[in-house]
């Protein structure tokens, strides 16, 4: 049997996947930062500081999208609280950035400005340790991980799944948002944490610092992709997709599906924490509105647009939708939500496999046209999709 269509497109897609992500990482990690720092401002090759920041932000979103794809596209768990994990990572990094302001704040106090404003005299106990970058970075990963693990343990063990799970996660992020809005919670209330000055001694206003942050974020995306690809191509990845398709059968086959789901769920949350920690120094603020349920819904839309179950697709989805958002919210401020809604409807109705699969079938159509034109003389190409039924032994009487 020659290579079938499915295998052929499978091979193409496998290479596409890595190719797309590696080139995005190279652009965001090396090309753009270098063009920003090294070229003079008048040069046609110069990348503006604005564009650099936008790209850094988009790369953070791409990390979240890959993490989301791991749980949704592969394990079939639709999370509506990935923005919460992202924000928790962001807050941990924000706390460090607040502490490095030192006495340069508005009130010249060693306490963060909002604490002085609230008339607090001492640092709350849970702010201890955040003077150190290493501790803050660790917490940026650990806190989302622990929250996800504990929540996931009870949810998966009680066999909450499907839409019920999604609703509970949405309630979780909403509750967290209300908690963080309170001034007494100790994270700056609705203003959040902002007015950062420097990271590890480097001023955040400096273009070179921003270029470095963008490059590091691209490294983070590469790492995220490598981890998720490693998981999805291992046997554990095959177990996860099996759970997505027929969970009961996986259970009957002797697997503890709770452990597998919990593993993917926790890894995904940790990666979101990483993205949040990289995001906050670049945008300069973190506040509870990041935890809005709608933010998490947007993450699901990025992945759906790009293509569930293709890691590169989710990266492309995050970049495209957010790129469009940056442009449309500036050009037509009131139309953005209509556009987002329309996009979701169109993708759900017409491109259930997302953009990447649509591109794949496009190249497939081209292959068919080539067959029609009789151009296939030297090479056996993929057979037409209709031959699938024929192969199964339901041969029409010829």
């Amino acid at each position, binding site marked *: 049997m020659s290579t079938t269509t499915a295998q052929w497109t499978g091979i193409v897609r496998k290479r596409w996947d890595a190719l797309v992500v590696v080139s995005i990482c190279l652009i965001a990690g090396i090309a753009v930062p270098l063009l920003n720092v090294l070229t003079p401002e008048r040069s046609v090759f110069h990348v503006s500081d604005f564009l650099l920041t936008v790209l850094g932000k988009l790369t953070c979103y791409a990390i979240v999208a890959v993490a989301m794809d791991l749980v949704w596209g592969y394990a079939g768990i639709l999370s509506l609280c990935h923005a919460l994990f992202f924000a928790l990572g962001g807050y941990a990094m924000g706390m460090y950035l607040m502490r490095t302001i030192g006495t340069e704040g508005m009130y010249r106090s060693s306490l963060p400005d909002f604490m002085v404003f609230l008339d607090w005299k001492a640092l709350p106990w849970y702010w201890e340790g955040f003077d150190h970058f290493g501790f803050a970075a660790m917490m940026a990963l650990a806190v989302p991980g622990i929250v996800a693990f504990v929540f996931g343990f009870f949810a998966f063990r009680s066999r909450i799944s499907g839409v019920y799970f999604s609703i509970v996660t949405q309630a979780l992020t909403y509750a967290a948002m209300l908690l963080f809005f309170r001034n007494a919670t100790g994270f700056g209330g609705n203003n959040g944490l902002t007015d950062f000055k420097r990271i590890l001694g480097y001023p955040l206003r400096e273009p070179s610092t921003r270029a470095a942050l963008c490059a590091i974020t691209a490294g983070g995306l590469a790492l995220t992709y490598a981890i998720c690809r*490693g998981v999805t191509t291992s*046997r554990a990845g095959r177990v996860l997709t099996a759970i997505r398709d027929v969970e009961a059968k996986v259970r009957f086959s002797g697997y503890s599906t709770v452990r597998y789901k919990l593993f993917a769920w926790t890894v995904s949350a940790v990666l979101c924490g990483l993205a949040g920690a990289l995001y906050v120094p670049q945008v300069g603020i973190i506040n509870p509105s990041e935890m809005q349920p709608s933010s998490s819904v947007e993450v699901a839309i990025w992945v759906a647009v790009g293509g569930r179950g293709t890691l590169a697709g989710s990266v492309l989805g995050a970049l495209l939708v957010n790129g469009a958002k940056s442009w449309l919210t500036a050009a037509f401020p009131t139309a953005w939500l209509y556009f987002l809604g329309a996009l979701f409807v169109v993708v759900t109705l017409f491109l259930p496999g997302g953009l990447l699969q649509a591109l794949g079938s496009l190249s497939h159509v081209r292959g068919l046209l080539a067959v029609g034109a009789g151009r296939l003389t030297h090479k056996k190409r993929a057979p037409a999709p209709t031959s699938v039924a024929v192969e199964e032994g339901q041969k029409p009487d010829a």
Partner: protein
Amino acid sequence: MALLEVDKITVSFDGFRALDSLSLSLEAGELRCIVGPNGAGKTTLMDVITGKTRPDSGVVRFADRNITNMPEHVIVGLGIGRKFQRPTVFPNHTVFENLELTAHGDKGVFRALFGGISSETRMAIERTLELTGLLDQRFRRAGLLSHGQKQWLEIGMLLMQQPKLLLVDEPVAGMTQNEIERTAEILATLAGRQTVVVVEHDMDFVRSIASTVTVLHEGRVLAEGPMREVQNDPRVIEVYLGA
């Protein structure tokens, strides 16, 4: 000593006796067919053995252990595999991966992440592919298989778990004549190596696998023995075969 012993099991649903003090015994390596008209209690018997239904009275012993009130997954762990009527395979995995996923071995997350596939597992998969006649379908997505192929794949998946006892519920329902013959061959190959219980309506099929037959009627064993004898039993002809 019998591998499976069902001793005076009674199950009633709202006063209706689905199983009425039913006893049955099965030797290791045996291929047993259980037949009987609708409502005879075939499926209820399977449910009791696998722990899905709790009997009102009676005992089920498996490999010298009383398994009567054990939870389902523990019974699976002891080595009783059940194939339900509707085939359930992993549609987006290849035939090979389907067998790999159900293979006997460490099912932990860590091993699944970092461990490769062992040569024993690979060989077991090859043997199962050959047995089920799916060798040339190994790289095919299981969702694309025909109904019959899916049933064989699922039997293969159960075999990969190395069960001591395999329960197969109506395997040939909805199959073509060719597929039925092929299924009979597969099950007949297992006889002697694997203890199998087949619940089936199709008398031609039961005849073709030529095994010991137990005929159930109204929750009791009506007759038991080789197909040839059972076929000629006047009581059996009256309630079932005569139709």
